[in-house]
């Protein structure tokens, strides 16, 4: 039988060339016996403190932590479902699809926060808004925009200042970028007007948030749209150079989600890790050094949280994706 997931995500594979790991590191427990293979879209440096905390309590477990782009993750899993035990990703839609397609194991013993889990198999453990990150120097003497409309006006007011200095995800490459873009488009027409302006001003497209923030800190970029604030603020060397703005009109907010692959043979260890992440989602505010924004800390009224429900499958539909990418390209790609 043909691999269903492969068919459905064939498009991804085609676009994304060969999916490969960006990074891979082994975290050893004090008395490691079981090796848990985690495939994650979160950079190792950011996630390391969480894993160290986990290994402290579970010294018999080793963690083989591999990092790949959220879109690549799907390809890697469909190519080799037996190669990993736990999948952590910021692309909620792709994660939900994995669970919907029966690749995730149900973990009835775990209780996520209300609204932050799906089918007892997909668990959200952070709440992270998409932010606009600005280069402080570039905005010296200017009003800092707080909504998309104000950003549009600021760009229109001085197009030559910003030309070539705008950046956002290339949604054709980044799973998280695609999720943010589609949810923005679903929420407000302003998104398309903003993208028109970005397109007119020769916006740069990035595969990954890291590069975008580097360029921003260096002053090659003035404005980065739909970047995770947590990434920008986690780097001490960039922290002073950038301003992180959570748009006041609406802030599309995603949950980083974790699932355990149904093919795993290490359910106990995997469940322990998921439990650790869920508990972190709630108690992180009391725990200095926890790198990711916890669910409990967020003010839900300000946030436009993407909910974990079958609607997420809509933009993954081949026809829908074609249409969306068509519109997106005609706005941004010149």
């Amino acid at each position, binding site marked *: 039988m*043909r691999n*269903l997931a492969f*068919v*459905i995500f064939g498009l991804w594979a085609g676009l994304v060339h060969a999916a490969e790991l960006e990074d891979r590191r082994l975290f050893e427990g004090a008395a490691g016996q079981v090796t848990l293979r985690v495939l994650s879209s979160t950079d190792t440096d950011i996630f390391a403190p969480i894993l160290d905390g986990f290994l402290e309590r579970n010294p018999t477990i080793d963690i083989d932590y591999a990092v790949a782009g959220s879109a690549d993750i799907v390809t890697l899993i469909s190519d080799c479902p037996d190669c990993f035990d736990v999948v952590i990703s910021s692309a909620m839609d792709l994660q939900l699809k994995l669970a*919907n*397609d*029966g690749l995730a194991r149900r973990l009835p013993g775990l209780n996520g926060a209300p609204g932050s889990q*799906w*089918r*007892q198999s997909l668990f959200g453990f952070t709440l992270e808004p998409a932010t606009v990150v600005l280069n402080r120097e570039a905005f010296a003497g200017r009003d800092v925009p707080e909504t998309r409309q104000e950003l549009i006006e600021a760009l229109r007011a001085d197009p030559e200042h910003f030309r070539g200095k705008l950046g956002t995800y290339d949604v054709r490459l980044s799973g998280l970028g695609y999720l943010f873009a589609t949810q923005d488009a*679903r929420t407000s027409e302003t998104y398309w007007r903003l993208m028109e302006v970005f397109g007119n001003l020769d916006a740069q497209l990035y595969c990954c948030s890291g590069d975008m923030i580097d360029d921003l800190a260096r002053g090659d970029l003035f404005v980065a749209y739909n970047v995770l604030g947590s990434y920008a603020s986690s780097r001490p060397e960039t922290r002073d150079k950038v301003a992180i703005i959570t748009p006041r009109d609406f802030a599309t907010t995603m949950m980083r989600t974790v699932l355990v692959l149904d093919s795993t043979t290490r359910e106990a260890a995997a469940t322990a890790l998921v439990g650790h992440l869920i508990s972190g989602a709630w108690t992180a505010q009391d725990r200095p050094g926890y790198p990711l924004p916890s669910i409990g800390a967020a003010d839900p009224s300000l946030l436009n949280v993407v909910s974990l*429900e*079958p*609607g*997420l*499958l*809509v933009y993954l*539909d*081949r*026809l*829908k994706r074609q*249409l969306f990418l068509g519109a997106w390209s005609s706005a941004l790609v010149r």
Partner: protein
Amino acid sequence: MTGRPWSLRRRLTLTLIGGAAVLAILFYLVVRTYAQQIAQQSQDRILEASVTSLLDAAVVRDGQIELDVPYAAFSMLDTAADDRVFYAIQQGNEFLSGYDGLALDDADPGAGPIFATRAFQGTQVRVARLTRNLPASPRPVLLTVSVAQTRDSLAGTLWTISVNAAVFGAAFFLLAAGMALWTSASTLRPLGQIAASVARRGPGDLRPVIRPVPLELSPLVASFNSLMTRLSHSLTQSETFIAEAAHRVRTPLATVRSHAEATLMRVDKDENRQALRSMIRAIDESSRAAGQLLDHAMVTFRSDQLETQDVDLVTICSEIVDRLTPVAEMMDLELGLQSDGPVPVRADPILIQNAVRNLVDNALKYSAAEGAIQITVTARPSPTITVTDQGIGFPQTEMASLSQRFQRGDNAKGTVGSGLGLTIAKDVAEAHGGRLELRNMEAGGACAILHL
């Protein structure tokens, strides 16, 4: 009657409880089936809405199908149990998008959506499928959309409803069972009441049952009443007959006796006189027995329709003493009456008289000469009339049976008697709600006490 007696009440209760159980189970099944239908229908409606919204979003542009999937098309399929969602979009037989395995080969633009439950990806799903002709040139395009959803939420809903229905069914059953117990008890209560009231009656009470009874019991009570009437009628008849017979015997006996006495005057031959004397004694005995029978019949009759009046027991007893003193003197016996003033009671004086006379008769009969017979009337603690003598006393072993009809003691051999005296006394006492006590005196002699 043969076999174990069966209980009307148990049968009624079991029938009612059984009926309730059947109803409760029926209720459960009906609710479950209905709930299943409703739940399935509501899932079908949502699937249909999803399919329709997908088809509505489809247009043909430059010969290409363009389907701008509305977010709501899948969003509306969100359930409490987070059911999995699958779909397939196909043009003719060509698969366009979604889950390949859900597509079908024979697309057919039917009138309405088709629903089916089938296995998909290792689980049961409900599929809604709709095919539509999209206008296009040169010819219309056939677009089929299938949307499927797992049935976890449906199963959850059904489970909840089933549990509730079961709880309701059980509660209904318990309530009905309680009501069945109560109903059968209360339905059969009149039967028990009639039985109890009949059982409470005295032995001679043959009155019909006149309390109101349920319609269903009235044939039984009516035939019981008519049986009672016939019974009491035949009893009365036989008593009347006895009285009549005794009377008829006594009158000619009196005639025969007077003839015999007259003849005795006239015959001189010793052996003839001897024969006449025993004849006269036999006549006396017969007439006395007839008298006793008559008395007994009279006592029975008056006891059945007891009519009481205020009487003084002392007065009644002193009349008897007056009348029997001559007889006692003839037998060298002393007859005395003792009391502390009048003892008023409500009673039938004729009956009391009869009873006391019989007791005194016995005392006279079973006493040796020169003895004393004492009648004592007391008011406290209850009205009693005690007759004592100094004779042979009651035969100790037969004490309990002496007051039965025609029952005579061992000590009565050679004494004239019919065995009805104590019976009469006892009947009279019982007719007045009292009893007859028999015992022997320590110093010798019988003691009969009439408690009233």
